[in-house]
């Protein structure tokens, strides 16, 4: 398939997943805010800006980080490239450029979602009924994935979609874990309090993981939550699971045998997978969860770059670089 098309499908998929995750971030924070006796808005909302967007970009346009400003920044702010609106717009532009490759149903779903988002601005449900807004939006994203799997041939283009989606999801799960761990564990004496339990439940619910978590663990503890999100083999939003899926997609694209590599993208992802395969949660926490997630995100970016170099940046050999410079 065309490199440009593979690139567009990969990003279409990443942007939808990103928008969905931002909706989850905001939603869980809104829930937490409801349970808090003495809300410390800045402490609760500022970290969201840091993990999803650009802090300096935010402070240029907003004076304080509170529920109202951060929610606006993350939902409808078109100047923020990582707002839900911007992501969905980018997803749609990508979809538009590959309409002939994806199924019409997929295109219609992306198009409809953006129209819905645009129309919703007029009656502003983000402020009047945020719970309904975010759950509706999440459903629209779920519908997109369902349509994708059910209507698109599971060939090379579909595998690029799967690759983009899983890499993005792994990244976002690591971020949601990072920021929540930071907020929910302010001081040691919070641990074990009823309030603490509520927070972990909210976190798990925000990634649709509460019920699945409960099937694995009987108690709610920070260590177990971290283990569940990082190392569970079967939960579809856990990082280990996402990387395994991404790895399968890469191998389906190359046709290479599993547990070996034929290009740099497979090599880097394979290494990262093995690290996670032999990691345990105690070791991770002992070295500091935040530090661990930081390193993980950097390596995941490396995988993303390798995907770009391997598949999307196909440059013709020698002479064409001269040709290229002629056109500039």
């Amino acid at each position, binding site marked *: *398939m*065309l*490199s*440009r*098309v*593979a690139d567009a499908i990969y990003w279409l998929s990443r942007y939808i997943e990103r928008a969905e995750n931002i909706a989850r971030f905001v939603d869980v924070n809104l829930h937490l805010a409801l349970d808090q006796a003495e809300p410390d808005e800045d402490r609760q909302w500022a970290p969201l800006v840091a993990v999803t967007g650009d802090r300096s970009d935010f402070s240029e346009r907003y004076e304080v980080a509170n529920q109202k400003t951060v929610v606006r920044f993350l939902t409808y702010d078109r100047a923020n490239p990582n707002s839900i609106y911007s992501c969905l717009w980018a997803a749609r*532009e990508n979809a*538009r*450029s590959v*309409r*002939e*490759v994806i199924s*019409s149903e997929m*295109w*219609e779903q992306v*198009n*409809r979602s953006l*129209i819905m988002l645009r129309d919703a601005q007029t009656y502003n449900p983000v402020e009047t009924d945020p719970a309904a807004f975010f759950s509706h939006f999440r459903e629209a994203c779920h519908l997109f994935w369902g349509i994708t799997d059910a209507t698109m041939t599971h060939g*090379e283009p579909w595998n*690029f979609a799967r690759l983009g989606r899983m890499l993005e999801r792994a990244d976002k799960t690591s971020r949601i874990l990072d920021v929540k761990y930071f907020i929910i564990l302010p001081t040691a004496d919070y641990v074990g309090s009823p309030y603490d339990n509520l927070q972990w439940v909210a976190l798990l619910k925000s990634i649709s993981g509460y019920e699945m978590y409960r099937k694995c663990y009987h108690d709610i503890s920070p260590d177990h939550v971290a283990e569940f999100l990082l190392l569970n083999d079967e939960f579809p939003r856990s990082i280990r699971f996402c990387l395994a899926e991404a790895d399968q997609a890469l191998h389906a*694209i190359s046709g290479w045998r599993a547990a070996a590599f034929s290009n740099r993208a497979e090599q880097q992802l394979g290494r990262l997978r093995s690290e996670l395969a032999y990691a345990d949660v105690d070791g991770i926490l002992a070295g500091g969860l935040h530090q661990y997630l930081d390193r993980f995100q950097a390596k995941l970016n490396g995988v993303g770059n390798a995907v770009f170099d391997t*598949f*999307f940046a*196909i440059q*013709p*050999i020698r*002479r*064409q670089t001269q*040709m290229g410079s*002629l*056109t500039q």
Partner: protein
Amino acid sequence: MSFHGYQTDQFFDELFERDGKPRAGAQALIDRIEQLAEGELARRQNAAEAALMNLGVTFAVYGDEEGTEKIWPFDLVPRIVEPHDWEHIETGLRQRIEALNLFLCDIYGEQRIINDGVVPRGLIESATAYRPQCMGVRPPNDAWCHITGTDLVRGGDGTIYVLEDNLRCPSGVSYVLENRQLLKRTFPRLFADLAIRPVDDYPIRLRDMLQQLAPTGMYDPVITVLTPGIYNSAYFEHSYLAQQMGVELVEGRDLVVHDGCVMMRTTRGLTRVDVIYRRIDDDFLDPLAFREDSMLGVPGLFDVWKQGRVAIANAPGTGVADDKVVYAYVPDIIRYYFDTEPILANVPTYLCWRESDRKYVLDHLPELVVKSADESGGYGMLIGPQATAAACEEFARRIAANPRKYIAQPVIDLSRVPTITENGFEGRHVDLRPYILYGDDIHVLPGGLTRVALVKDSLVVNSSQGGGSKDTWVLADPKSAAPRNGLSHGVKHA
């Protein structure tokens, strides 16, 4: 909604006789619409528009920042073409396309028609779309204009005229196919009862034609549609046609010339391309051959084409034959190559570079339509009867400054078709663009794009100027065995 009180005024109406009776072929449609419950037609119209919006069947409006995409207004009442009219149109178009193709072979070859004094040399060489780079090139099967969308209009007395020959990258065929799908959903029973000729096989025929252009003996050539990209006003159509034909949609940046061939960049390296259906103007096709500053094209593409290692449809240089001044010579061109009279009439045309014509034009501006020879889309034109005195003066100045660039024609009272308006049905002016494929044989799509000027009394049907579209129903001749809608091999629709 009812047709009671519908007025044809002094115009030719495509559905009604002058005395207000429905034309024979339109009777069933009129009856069906009259049977619909009050408000039902409006409901179906809204449903159709919502479907277009969700499908993203849109066009971009240049210079309109927010909401750059709009659905193209669509009117549910179709235009009906009766069999004898269609037969006349089809034979006329075949004759015209064949002549124009011979003309292109000749212009870029021996130039007999110039040497014999039928078409002035200066006229050809001053045409903006003339490409001296194409001299001596022999494209596959000597075919230059593979896809044509000729604009036809009907005057007050019922005569059908050719208004323009669009030989470069005529657009709009995707709307023909989409409009038909919508109408089938809206009036399913009529399709069952009437013998409406199908248009759905256009993408299959287009692909077959493109396949014929590939080097002979090639079993499975790589065919592509070349688009300027998603910000082009006709992007939807490019994407749609690629999808319906099952071929790659490429942009200039996907292609590269390597080892004397055109290649596309894929996830597995470079793959050779054999046929390009380009939807980019000549100017932007190849910065090495044409405009240097083009970012849309492929450096070196023209050379590969000249050497016959890639086919391009339409061939570079075809635009010279739809120059509006050359247009005036088409009847002579037909007579020259075939020694027979043209079947379809031209609109009488005054060429401003002829002194006598220019004098007449300048004296009669308020009665004439003046067009720039090399612009399209309803831009750069003056409609005398509706223009202000200042606009007329402005055009008089422009004509005096550059007479080669302008032609003038009498105003044709375009025929009308009933159209849904706030005041019920009213007549609106229409034109018709049938599509012609020139491959091993000539195929005229039985139907075409009926563009309608939605503004009352307006004669400008272009989408950029407030025009909309209608489905076009060509009725099958009951005597002939042309396939009916239900029997055709259907293309699965998006």
